[in-house]
């Protein structure tokens, strides 16, 4: 897919400013939805006592994931280099099938639409979608 334009990066950074105070809750909501709507994703969390939306593990992990996204926003000018360690983690330890990055991205975009019904315009949507795709690509770098 295409690389991020200067405009995309500015849009993402500006929108992230609005997201960051609620980032943990947004991540938890997206993760919770993903586990319900795409049950195949539960296979990665069989070690959790409770995978339901709003549960402790889901809240905690939603925040962890969003901290990673925040990091990616800060390193948006070179995602491949910036996310090297995270990529190694996902490649060698977690071994999450990259198809799932798209699934999580969809749920994140949906929660953003719910949380920011007026700010999540089509223009912001396309910039965020491109960013999350680029993020997913950087995360898959070390897979093979």
């Amino acid at each position, binding site marked *: 897919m295409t690389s991020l334009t200067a405009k995309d990066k500015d849009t993402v950074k500006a929108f992230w400013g609005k997201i960051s105070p609620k980032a943990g809750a947004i991540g938890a909501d997206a993760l919770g*939805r993903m586990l*319900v*709507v795409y049950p195949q994703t539960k296979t990665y969390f069989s070690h959790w006592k409770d995978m339901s939306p709003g549960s402790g593990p889901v809240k905690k992990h939603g925040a962890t994931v969003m901290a990673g996204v925040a990091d990616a926003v800060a390193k948006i000018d070179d995602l491949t280099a910036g996310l090297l360690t995270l990529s190694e983690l996902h490649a060698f330890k977690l071994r999450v099938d990259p198809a799932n990055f798209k699934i999580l991205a969809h749920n994140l975009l949906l929660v953003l*639409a719910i949380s920011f019904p007026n700010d999540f315009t089509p223009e912001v*949507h*396309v910039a965020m979608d491109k960013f999350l795709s680029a993020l997913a690509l950087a995360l898959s770098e070390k897979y093979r």
Partner: protein
Amino acid sequence: MVAWSDQERSIITSIFSNLDYNDVGPKALIRCLIVYPWTQRYFASFGNLYNADAIKTNPNIQAHGTKILHGLDRAVKNMDDIKTTYAELSVLHSEKLHVDPDNFKLLADCLTIVIAAKMGSGFTPEIQETFQKFLAVVVSALGKQYH
């Protein structure tokens, strides 16, 4: 054949009976054309689509968005056999409109996001699951007659 629980049926009929077609339909199509610009290929005859503002104010797009959304009404009324209900529509999209069926999913995703934004926290994970299941069946039926 797809199995629907009573709860799923009621969720779908409820969403559609509370829908503002003239608002949600155009919004979903507009979002699709902006977020996935290659989908503009099917609308060459619709006039000015040169930028986001042009797309948002294009009256042909407005009308078509509403039309597409109403196209889902028959699926809502015939949930037990969406495949047969949409056989003709599938042929139309394949033989006449030549729409790549992968694009149906893109529009479906945009529609989901527009409805989620409207319903807010009322768009629970369970409702999301049911709505996405419904759209997946619709998308599959629309792609069935492609040969």
